[in-house]
């Protein structure tokens, strides 16, 4: 018993640091959300009554889900190619996937703006080839936001799915073919089900990340597509409505915890965050 106590005492500094720097501010946000401007749940009532708040929540969810779906689709295809590539090729593919992670999110967002804007590379190229007459609205709208976010999230989708695919014994795939299954059936009945834990893990990771996106939607949305994080910043810094901002921040945290709680029943969360089970 006493020895156990000693070990716990070693954890104490870290625990205090976490409490002071992390838990306390969150609790404070929670407190603000029910005390500003007056004590009560009036901020949370807005969630049910205020169309503006509802639109932001809906936009955030919609973009989050869309981003998750697209990042998973692209990420799965990439992970599949990488998992089946020769070891030497795998290293180059992985480098290609991870490279964007080392470039600032700001730089990437502006890069997309230059690519997608009216006089951007894409629109000019399409016009030059005569495919379109007028430039397409590719940025400063939801489309642009989703493009930027998917681009940002694909590596995060690839990694858990690739880990899951790498654990699949290649002999299982050969065995399935030897037993008479076509390539398509092998994929559908053996590969896909066995890679599913990675897909679920990637989905949780990408969705949670997507809910809290700030810079990418702020730049590529051009102020018209408001997601939760930007709206919170607007409430607090520009409108000085601390209570409303804190309310949505709390809702965001609650939504993330709820997502984790639901999926912790399906997947091993320790794997999601990199620990080997």
């Amino acid at each position, binding site marked *: 018993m006493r020895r156990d106590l000693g070990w716990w005492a070693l954890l104490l500094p870290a625990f205090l640091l976490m409490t002071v720097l992390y838990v306390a501010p969150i609790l404070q946000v929670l407190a603000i959300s029910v005390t500003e401007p007056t004590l009560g749940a009036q901020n949370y009532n807005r969630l049910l009554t205020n169309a503006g708040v509802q639109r932001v929540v809906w936009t955030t969810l919609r973009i989050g889900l869309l981003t998750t779906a697209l990042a998973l689709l692209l990420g799965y295809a990439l992970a599949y190619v990488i998992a089946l590539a020769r070891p030497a090729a795998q290293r180059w593919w992985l480098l290609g996937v991870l490279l964007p992670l080392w470039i600032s999110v700001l730089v990437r967002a502006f890069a997309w703006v230059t690519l997608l804007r009216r006089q951007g590379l894409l629109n000019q190229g399409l016009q030059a080839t005569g495919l379109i007459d007028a430039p397409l609205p590719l940025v400063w709208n939801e489309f642009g936001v989703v493009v930027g976010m998917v681009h940002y999230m694909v590596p995060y989708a690839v990694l858990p799915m690739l880990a899951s695919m790498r654990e699949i*014994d290649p*002999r*299982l795939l*050969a*065995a*399935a*073919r*030897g*037993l*008479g*299954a*076509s390539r398509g*059936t092998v994929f559908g*009945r*053996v590969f896909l*089900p*066995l890679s599913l834990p990675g897909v679920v893990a990637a989905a949780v990771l990408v969705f949670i990340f997507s809910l809290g996106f700030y810079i990418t939607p702020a730049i590529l949305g051009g102020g018209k597509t408001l997601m939760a994080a930007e709206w919170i910043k607007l409430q607090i810094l520009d409108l000085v409505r601390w209570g409303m901002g804190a309310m949505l921040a709390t809702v965001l945290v609650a939504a993330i915890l709820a997502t984790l709680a639901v999926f912790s029943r399906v997947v091993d969360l320790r794997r999601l965050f990199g620990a080997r089970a």
Partner: protein
Amino acid sequence: MSSTAGHALALRGLTRRYGSFVAVRDVSLNVESGEFVTLLGPSGSGKTTMLMMVAGFTEPSEGTILLDGRDITALPPERRDFGMVFQGYALFPHMTVAENVAFPLRVRGLGRAAREEKVRAALDLVQLDRFADRKPAQLSGGQQQRVALARALVFDPALLLLDEPLSALDKKLRGELQEELKALHRRVGRTFINVTHDQEEALRLSDRVAILDHGRLVQQGSPLELYERPATRFVADFLGRSNFLAGVVREVRPGAMALVAGGTRLVQAVAYGAPKLALGTPGLLALRPEKISLLAEGEAADTEVAGEIAAWSYHGTGFALSVQTVDLGLLQVALPAWRAPIAPAEGMAVRLGWPADASVPVAEDSHAA
């Protein structure tokens, strides 16, 4: 292809290269319908490569594969209709035992009722009917092996291919499952091709054994033929143990010849029609340790040699003696322990002898590859 009889397989000049390395070199082999054939060879001799070419996972560089006379060399694995038991079994971990066994039926589009009936029959065959709803991870190694067998047999395959099906099991279980496998082969009457590096397993299970060395087929035959009449030094050494006696041919008569090694005359019976060695050429004989006897005072044998026990050990059923001789070097002798004529001791002088048909002439190996 779901008749009850087995199917015949013929390999013609099968070769597989990896770059400049030749993993399998010009192998021709006939496997008769209903036969149990084992490919035996040391690690890296090309057994798996051979089996993978038969199964269709590896493309031969040269040669053809015929099933009942039909060329199937270019057929993809899923169209060959062969059952295969992989090393490590390769059971699908996300499916139950019954689903695993049903897999080949499902991909063939069999109806649910027919499927269930066949799965039940296959699980009965390997005595696993009680485990139908378990996942593979909840089974012992031996049980997993039997699921793999049931899955490979359930769709009445033309051929059953087994890649070291028992190597992951402990010795006792391996022995039991060898018996089961042999009984299963008799019951289902199909053509089995087994791969192993375990010579004992090959001898016990097979109708015929094909021995591979460095990608070459060095000899094939029934276990008895291979053990009694090995063609090369490698075969004599790999299947069981052998002494090798080198000498020069001094005498050739009908039915026998004599070699001379120093002062020892080696009398060797020559089977009718067997190729004879020419006078004056060097020859090599293989002699099993259990075919050497200890000669009593005044007892004679076709070949006799004197020596001294250099080392000995006791194995319950017998003694293993290492006898140092002047002309033949160290000879390994297996002596039955029951009523052994001597109590072995180091340094003891003994006289060894064996009849002319105990040894066999073998060729030196030719891996000038």
